[in-house]
């Protein structure tokens, strides 16, 4: 894990836990750390998807699949800061596509993507996270997506008063 330009001189334990999560879970795939730093009923929100049901166990399963897709993932932390119980992190991930991702079989292609996440803490554990990342750029780098023109003619704009 490389860290460039950490934002907050008022470092705290929560920031350190996020660093461990990135280093151990995201980069190395050592998922034991998840049980240590996430609450059991952890709620995960990614983009506009519905909240992941199943808490920490289900999230851990997702991380396991993600690590199988991107086993050599390396992360650069460009921003990391906190305000009380909330932490924001912006990371750049670099990985080779080596396992099924979104139904797409291994392509062996190198991919780079950006994630910005907000994490809420209570009693030293992450209880909820809201993560945003551009799935389109990942799929484009895999050469696995087609954008086409609308099938239906453009709708007339509504009358403006």
């Amino acid at each position: 894990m490389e860290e460039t330009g950490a934002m907050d001189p008022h470092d705290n334990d929560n920031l350190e836990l996020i660093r461990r999560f990135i280093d151990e879970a995201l980069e190395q795939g050592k998922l034991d750390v998840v049980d240590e730093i996430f609450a059991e009923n952890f709620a995960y929100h990614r983009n506009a998807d519905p909240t992941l049901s199943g808490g920490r166990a289900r999230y851990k399963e997702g991380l396991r699949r993600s690590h199988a897709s991107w086993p050599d993932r390396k992360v650069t932390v460009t921003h990391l800061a906190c305000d009380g119980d909330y932490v924001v992190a912006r990371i750049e991930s670099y990985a080779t596509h080596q396992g099924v991702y979104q139904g797409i079989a291994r392509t062996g292609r190198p991919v780079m993507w950006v994630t910005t996440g907000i994490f809420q803490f209570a009693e030293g554990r992450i209880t909820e996270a809201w993560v945003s990342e551009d799935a389109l750029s990942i799929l484009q780098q895999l050469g696995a997506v087609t954008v086409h023109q609308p099938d239906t003619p453009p709708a007339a704009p509504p009358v403006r008063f």
Partner: protein
Amino acid sequence: MDDSPTQKNLILLRRFLTEVLEGGNLDLVDELFAENFAYHRNTKPPLAGGRERYKERMRRLRAAWPDRRDTVTHMFGADDYVAVRVESYATHQGPIYGIPATGRPVMWVTNGIFQLAEGRITEAWVSEDTFAMLQQMDVVAIRPQAELAAPQTPDGF
């Protein structure tokens, strides 16, 4: 309410979200953003051309989503930075990402980090899911695996 720098930054960000993004008051961009403002969206290179170019982008966004409504679910400050999470709801009424108006309702989430100096926004890093937006416009498809190139073995593996 205190008048700390962080509090002032939060008030400024709130004006940007309410008056520019929702309200379409593009003149306010000159007041809220530094002239050499640097905008980073997803994995794209920073937008060249500073505030003027960003304003032009805002104008196009406004034409694409004229009825945009935002819900700010998170906003907090740390030193010179403000972090925000916004849920946006809008009808697709003008060209965006090369797609002409579809008239469809679209919802998307944006996580952004804004850096401020001397009462203006100097740089912003924004993550949002373009794929979900295109899915809701019904203009995107994941290619069948058969069409993909055969798996390659990267060097060194």
